[in-house]
């Protein structure tokens, strides 16, 4: 009998994403509302997004602390009352600050949607930034900062961003201990009234959405008004930094963290889908060249990854790993070797086929369920793009050829332009 186990069952390439309905409304006061209705359980998530990220801050920590302090006391609730109420209704909230945006996520059972909205309105538009809570927050954050400075991964990453974007731009500016003393309630209030405004906000609700949802948004958010102060344009120019090789010695460390990369294009650039594919081949999935070579063949590391990230004013690509100190130089040599191979040799069709199918599968996962769809929507909406970005990505995944991949490798991975940071 023929052994049926020797042959892989037939495989279909998964098809492109079909249209995902996102319903858009604008509230009377200018708040943009996006609704993604999908899912089986009677649960929903609202993500409130403001252009209030680190790029807007005049001093380090300001955007992040303003955001974290939103739920530390409001007009109608003390911090304790707020926490008790959120927990009592089983509402999970999460305040986040990124480089370009900041905001609030709330997850709740639909039977508590009105409570969630009422509290979100308080948190986002009526914070009072009390001094006592601020002092405690700064002590807690400083303790966390000191721990993070003990990790070679963080030391290397911070140095990488400083090297790539420069210490004068918020994308690259390092945080120092003295910065924790400079934050005052007045600074937080100014930042809040400039950037946490209806016109500067969008709300993305996903999950099971009931008919009265737009009415509830109007009820709980429609009457907030913009402050008279328009947000100043605090954006700074990024001064292109020359490639650098920096080592930070950390005595007693058992491993060295490696970061190699540079500033690059973002999602708005036509080459971006192709660059994503190139990055995937190099180090973007478990079967990548870096993983196969440096982990699976040589055992130098537990993991090695590369990634491309879009920022509003720029973008960056970075290869990251931690290796035993004795493998550090060997690992770096292999990283450059793999880049050079991509620049000189065409990717073989069978490898490209694997990457095409893997990335198609990933796209299916990116649209699996309401929360994943909302994340994908946000990821393009923040760049002024729409879902057609994903169709372009899917087309490129299906049609890119080895010649184009080699062109991109030569254009975007010039070894002389790469910053090489080691810490350990």
């Amino acid at each position, binding site marked *: 009998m023929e052994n049926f*186990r*020797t042959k*892989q*069952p*037939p*495989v*279909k390439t*998964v098809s492109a994403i079909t249209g995902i309905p996102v319903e858009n409304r604008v509230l009377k006061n200018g708040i943009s509302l996006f609704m993604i209705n*999908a899912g*089986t*359980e*009677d*649960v929903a998530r609202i993500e409130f997004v403001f252009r209030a990220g680190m790029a807007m801050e005049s001093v380090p920590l300001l955007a992040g602390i303003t955001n974290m302090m939103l739920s530390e006391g409001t007009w109608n609730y003390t*911090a*304790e009352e707020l*926490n*008790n109420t959120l*927990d*009592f*209704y*089983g*509402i*999970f909230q999460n305040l986040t600050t990124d480089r370009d945006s900041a905001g609030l996520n709330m997850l*709740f*059972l639909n039977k508590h949607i009105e409570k969630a909205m009422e509290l979100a309105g308080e948190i986002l538009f009526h914070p009072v930034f009390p001094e006592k809570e601020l002092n*405690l927050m700064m*002590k*807690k954050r400083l*303790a*966390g900062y000191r*721990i993070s400075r*003990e990790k*070679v991964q963080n030391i290397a990453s911070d140095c990488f961003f400083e090297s790539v974007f420069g210490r004068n731009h918020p994308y690259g500016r390092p945080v120092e201990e003295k910065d924790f003393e400079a934050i005052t309630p007045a600074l937080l209030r100014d930042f809040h009234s400039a950037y946490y405004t209806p016109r500067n906000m969008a709300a993305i609700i996903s999950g099971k959405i009931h008919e009265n949802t737009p009415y509830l948004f109007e009820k709980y958010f429609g009457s907030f008004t913009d402050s008279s102060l328009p947000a100043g344009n605090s954006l700074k120019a990024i001064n292109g930094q020359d490639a650098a090789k920096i080592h930070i010695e950390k005595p*007693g460390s*058992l*491993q060295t963290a490696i970061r190699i990369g540079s500033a690059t294009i973002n999602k708005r650039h036509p080459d971006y889908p192709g660059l994503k594919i190139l990055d995937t081949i190099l180090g973007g*999935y*478990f*079967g990548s060249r870096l993983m196969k070579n440096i982990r*699976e*063949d*040589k*055992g*130098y*590391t*537990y993991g090695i990854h590369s990634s491309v990230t879009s920022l509003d004013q720029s973008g960056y690509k970075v290869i990251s790993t*931690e290796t*035993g100190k004795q493998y550090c130089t060997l690992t770096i040599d292999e990283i450059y070797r793999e880049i050079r191979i991509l620049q000189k040799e065409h990717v073989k069709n069978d490898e490209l*086929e*694997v*990457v095409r*199918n*893997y990335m198609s*599968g990933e796209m*299916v*996962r990116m649209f*699996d*369920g*309401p*929360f994943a769809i909302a994340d994908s929507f946000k990821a393009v909406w923040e760049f002024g793009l729409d879902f057609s970005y994903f169709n372009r990505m899917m087309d490129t995944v299906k049609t890119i050829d080895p010649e184009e991949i080699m062109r991109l490798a030569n254009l975007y991975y010039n070894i002389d332009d790469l910053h090489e940071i080691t810490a350990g």
Partner: protein
Amino acid sequence: MIEFRKSILNNGLRVIVHEDRSTPLVAMNILYDAGSKDEDPDLTGLAHLLEHLMYGGSANIPDYDTPLLLAGGENNAFTNNDITNYYITIPSENIETAFWLESDRMLDPDFTREKTEIQKNVVIEEFRQRYLNQPYGDVMIILRSLAYTTHPYKWPTIGTDISHIGRITNENVRQFFNANYAPKKAILALTGNIDPSMTFDLADKWFGSIPGRNAGTRSLPQEPEQQKAREITVKRNVPSDALFKAWHIGPRTAGDFYTLDLLTDLLAGGESGRLHSRLVRDLNLFSEINAYITSDFDPGLAVISGKIMKGVDIETAENELIRVIEEFKDGAVSDTEMEKVRNRYETSTVLSNTNILHKAMTLCMYELLGNADMINTDAANYRNVTKQMVSESAIRYFRPENCSTLHYLSDKLDE
């Protein structure tokens, strides 16, 4: 209500299917009833190393990853003290590739000396990266060896020491596989966009012909009751002092598991938990504090961990922490707090039911504990917990002589 169907193949493999047509994907989860508790005390880390080696190809499939990627699938695995768990998510039209891959490595994985040596190195780097080269990374290694004198929970899944991983041989790996990876020691669950009867046919086709190997029976040394408080102090290169306390509790299947789970949520769940509001917010003694139970299958631990605020004496912080626990024994929990932790539990359960992979893992775990239907009945067990049960459990377990304490001190604060 999670509806599912269950079937047992001739070789003893249990198969569970739950249909959820809201997704284009299928999740496949395979749980093996084998964890680090099944290791030889001199060869710890073996169960986890084997998990790595299961990706090195099998009798009929030289390379595990490439065919899965070709099918648009994604996979990962984890090992803990009790189980080893492998999972895949894949577009439903390609699900048969998952059956093909997982059945072949259950049948006959290909362990070679060379691959074992490389993965030993990878795991040693993992050991360094996650446990030794992280601030506070070795806490559970120390705390387990203090809390347990006898039961294999005394070592962590990664292993007691790098040298143990270094001396594992290919023969050890093969032996551990043969003793633990039999069909009757495994549970397979499929959830998502899939038809149950087709799934049982595929399970029979791919897994049905795997011989029902004789797996070893487990007899683990049981931990004697702790009679006296234990305490250890270590000094490390960390920025702040930290306190860890662990109390012995019952197994996952004990009736008071749910009470203890809610008790730790009352202590430290959310920002409003008592430990957080008292010790972080009011008294500023800790910069962060946490409480959880280990959910181990054999008798486990309730753990409280906290980082001490700079300038605070660790004894002062510890005394205040104990004072909060004493309040629980005195029945200080309010009805509102009880309703709060039940509501939090309800939200997190509904949320986990939105995820097919989570449902597949939970079904397997409950089946191993005795009954997959616990995925539906657990909610009632949580609802039935009363204030009185909370204070009784606090009195029963949170006793000084049942506690192991780790003072993890910063050597920088001396300077």
